[in-house]
């Protein structure tokens, strides 16, 4: 599943249920056919993995309750109001009645905090990042999102944006770990400073719209440039390694 497809699932999902093993079930209702498609969000390293070896993630992630319930990972169609029995030896049912999902596992709290949601999103992809990177991201999320009582509320954080950041860091795993911030619209931004008065910032916007801004106040004349991530010049990309 490409990062964009994963975002599409998140954005298209009418309902989203989180289970206590940090996995998520997205229910996308199709009013035209009266059926719902339950999409199981899992972590393939590429779309080819799922096609060639649909059970691969079981080995990667261990025994999964939702996997037992839903069967093969992507795109199974379940008629609304009917009961579908999972394939395999597990005798478990998933029922979708009037768009309400129920299963043997109960959804977690329906309105978790931004911190809770983001930490869960991070833990959904444990094998994509090094343990050092995960620990750093957890520390950063805690500081950014763990608001104290009475504190002015910051922006809610966008999970698709966090997925974009995680995917970017996992695809470029030799980069220095960035500083993190959250824009006023809730999108994650990663920054690298090669020296004191220079900084590259990548903003993980909606729909895979990622942009960079580079500033170097000590250049003559000062540098202040920006553009889409796909067009990031090498001279600025190198700042991410320092």
């Amino acid at each position, binding site marked *: 599943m490409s990062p964009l497809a994963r975002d599409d699932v998140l954005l298209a999902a009418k309902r989203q249920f989180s289970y206590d093993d940090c996995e998520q079930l997205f229910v996308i209702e199709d009013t035209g056919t009266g059926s719902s498609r339950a999409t199981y969000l899992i972590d393939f390293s590429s779309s080819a993995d799922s096609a060639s070896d649909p059970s691969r993630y079981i080995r990667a992630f261990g025994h999964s309750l939702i996997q037992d319930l839903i069967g093969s990972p992507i795109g199974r169609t379940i008629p609304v109001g009917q009961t579908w029995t999972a394939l395999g030896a597990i005798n478990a049912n998933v029922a979708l009645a009037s768009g309400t999902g129920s299963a043997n596992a109960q959804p977690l709290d329906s309105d978790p905090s931004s911190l809770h949601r983001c930490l869960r999103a991070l833990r959904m992809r444990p094998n994509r990042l090094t343990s050092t990177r995960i620990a750093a991201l957890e520390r950063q999320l805690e500081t950014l999102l763990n608001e104290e009582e009475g504190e002015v509320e910051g922006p809610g954080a966008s999970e698709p944006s966090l997925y974009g950041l995680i995917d970017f860091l996992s695809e470029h795993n030799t980069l220095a770990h960035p500083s993190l911030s959250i824009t*006023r619209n809730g999108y994650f931004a990663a920054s690298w*400073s090669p020296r004191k008065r220079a900084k590259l910032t990548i903003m993980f916007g909606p729909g895979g719209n990622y942009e960079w801004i580079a500033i170097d*106040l000590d250049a003559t004349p000062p540098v202040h440039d920006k553009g889409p991530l796909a067009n990031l010049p090498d001279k600025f990309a190198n700042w991410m390694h320092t």
Partner: protein
Amino acid sequence: MKGEEIPPTDHVALHCQRSDLEIGEDGNPSGVKIDAFRVDSDGISVNWLEFERGPFDDCLESVCRLFASLRDVRPAHRCGIMKVGEINQTAADCGREVQVVHDPVEEPQPNPAHSLIKGCVPDDVCLQRFTLLVELHPFSEAALSISKERKKQKRGTAR
């Protein structure tokens, strides 16, 4: 004196809240983002660090305590310091003319160090550059206690 331009060798301070900060890999603030600069109709509010003369560290502590007496200051917040001359130069490099002027406030609560960076507009391109001029300092325990006490008194008054 109200309207007095602050010397380029002096500094101004910003109260940076959690949502204004970038966080480093150790979980501590490592920089600020553009939102730290709130542009009002009269300018960007800052406090003049050297409005009472003294060694830098003493001035920093006074301004931190002043922030704490006026606002909700928390351990995760930071006091961001910028040199006035660097603000002027950076704005000039962007083709902007800014003025950093003393603007003491009497009401509702006196803030004798209050000052303004005048000449910027919201989302101004030079605000992005200003983020690189900020040096972050944690608030001292004494400053945090002042803020806590202030909150307690406020709650008492509300009751």
